[in-house]
């Protein structure tokens, strides 16, 4: 099985610990080897690119160069980290002069970027590299009857990487179906949760969160599945605030797709970080417990 350099990203240390735990557990089940990227630094989220482009590319390039040193492709569970590193690699390959300039700086840490390490999103690895059949094979507790709203968010699909159709993705639904659950169609699955704005424009962010929750709820979803810690925090941790602001009464569990996959693999919920949510995921777990295959 393939080995990857694992880039957890800052949020997976604490805020999205459950994503980290469930990712490790499920990948272990699927015989995928992960080697943490050595001494990785923050990818910059959106902030770096607000301040200086050169600095931002350098900070991302350091991670990519480190991955090259380890002779591995990078896998990032967070959409923000994924997008930053993917774009950095693409830009530096497109502009060799810029790459030279940055390599001069990276020399100070004994690193060099040449672009040989590819950047993958964790869900891509599940869906493309591991494949649905392999995932299905490990499912012992199919989540039958569980209605899951797949939330793609923004930065997995956008900006376009290679001419692909960004408006008709269905790989997340396929993954949900592979673990026995029922993927739910809802209009806003590709729309922004306002993650980047939760601090800088709270009103806008809460409005976007509200719309998303409403859309998923109208489609009678039991749980929203995400593939990004910022999305998860936004949709889950601020639900109470949304309810206060808009007089709604949302109580929608928001879990990482790896947690759902883990439940379908029969892994104990605690190991998957379930129990650390602000909106309880108990209803979801009941589904998994009550129907072994």
């Amino acid at each position, binding site marked *: 099985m393939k080995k990857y350099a694992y880039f957890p990203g*800052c949020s997976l*240390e*604490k*805020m999205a*610990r459950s994503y980290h735990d469930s990712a490790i557990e499920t990948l272990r089940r699927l015989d995928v080897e992960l080697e943490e990227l050595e*001494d*990785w*630094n*923050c990818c910059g*989220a*959106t*902030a*770096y*690119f*607000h*301040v*200086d*482009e*050169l*600095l931002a590319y*350098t*900070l991302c390039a*350091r991670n990519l160069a480190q991955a090259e040193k380890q002779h591995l492709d990078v896998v990032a569970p967070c959409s923000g980290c994924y997008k930053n590193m993917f774009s950095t690699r693409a830009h530096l390959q497109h*502009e060799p002069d*810029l790459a030279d*300039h*940055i390599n*001069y*700086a*990276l020399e*100070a*840490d*004994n690193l060099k970027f040449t672009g040989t390490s590819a950047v993958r999103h964790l869900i891509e690895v599940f869906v493309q590299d591991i494949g649905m059949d392999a995932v299905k094979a490990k499912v012992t507790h199919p989540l039958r009857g569980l209605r899951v709203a797949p939330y793609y968010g*923004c*930065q997995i699909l*956008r*900006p*376009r990487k290679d001419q692909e159709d*960004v408006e008709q993705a269905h790989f997340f639904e396929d993954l949900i179906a592979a673990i026995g659950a029922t993927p739910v169609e809802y209009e806003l699955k*590709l*729309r*922004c949760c*306002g*993650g*980047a*704005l939760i*601090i*800088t*424009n*709270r009103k*806008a*962010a809460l*409005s*976007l969160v509200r719309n998303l929750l409403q859309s998923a709820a109208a489609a009678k979803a039991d749980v929203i599945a995400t593939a990004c810690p910022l999305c998860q925090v936004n949709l889950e*941790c*601020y639900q109470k*605030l949304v309810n*206060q602001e808009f007089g709604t009464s949302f109580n929608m569990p928001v879990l990482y797709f790896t947690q759902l996959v883990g439940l379908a693999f029969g892994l104990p919920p605690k190991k998957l970080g379930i129990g*650390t949510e*602000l909106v309880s995921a108990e209803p979801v777990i009941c589904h998994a417990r009550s129907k072994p295959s």
Partner: protein
Amino acid sequence: MADKPTFREEIAGLLHASMGNPLDMCMQCGTCSATCPVASGGFMDNSPRRIIAMINAGLKERVLKSNTYWYCASCYHCTVRCPRGIDIAELMYGLKRYTVWHAKTQEDLIGPVFSETFVKMIVRTGRSFEPVLATSYLFTLGLPEMIQEAQTATTLMLKGRLPLLPARIKRLDNFKRVLKRIIPLGDPDA
């Protein structure tokens, strides 16, 4: 004697690394603005389309006074839908950088302070640490909002989700040397 670049030219220069088409190609169709979750929700003072029109018309002051780009959620939906192939999300990043570097950010925006605090933190330690970031916006909130935020933070802490100690990368000295070769940041600890 070289001519000073026009505002329009300056902005075009900001997008040199972007692989999108030039801003001049904008046909003002409004797709970006109606797609933008923030603009279509009424949270921006100028729509992205209007910003591009203002840039193309050289209306520098009005662009600098706008909050549009600081409220961009970086979702890239405008970029993938633009029929003229302009990378609008990158433009927003470019405008943010422009105002930061020209020290022309508006006082009432949280974004600039937040981003600068974030970058300073990374430059110092290589990793982010939420509690430090809180300082950049907490005091702009009114009292009820501050209390709410404190409540959310407490709940998260009790669930073990809030980092209590800042992280650091190991090769921090090298890291700082890398940065010095890229950009003269002065003393980050000052």
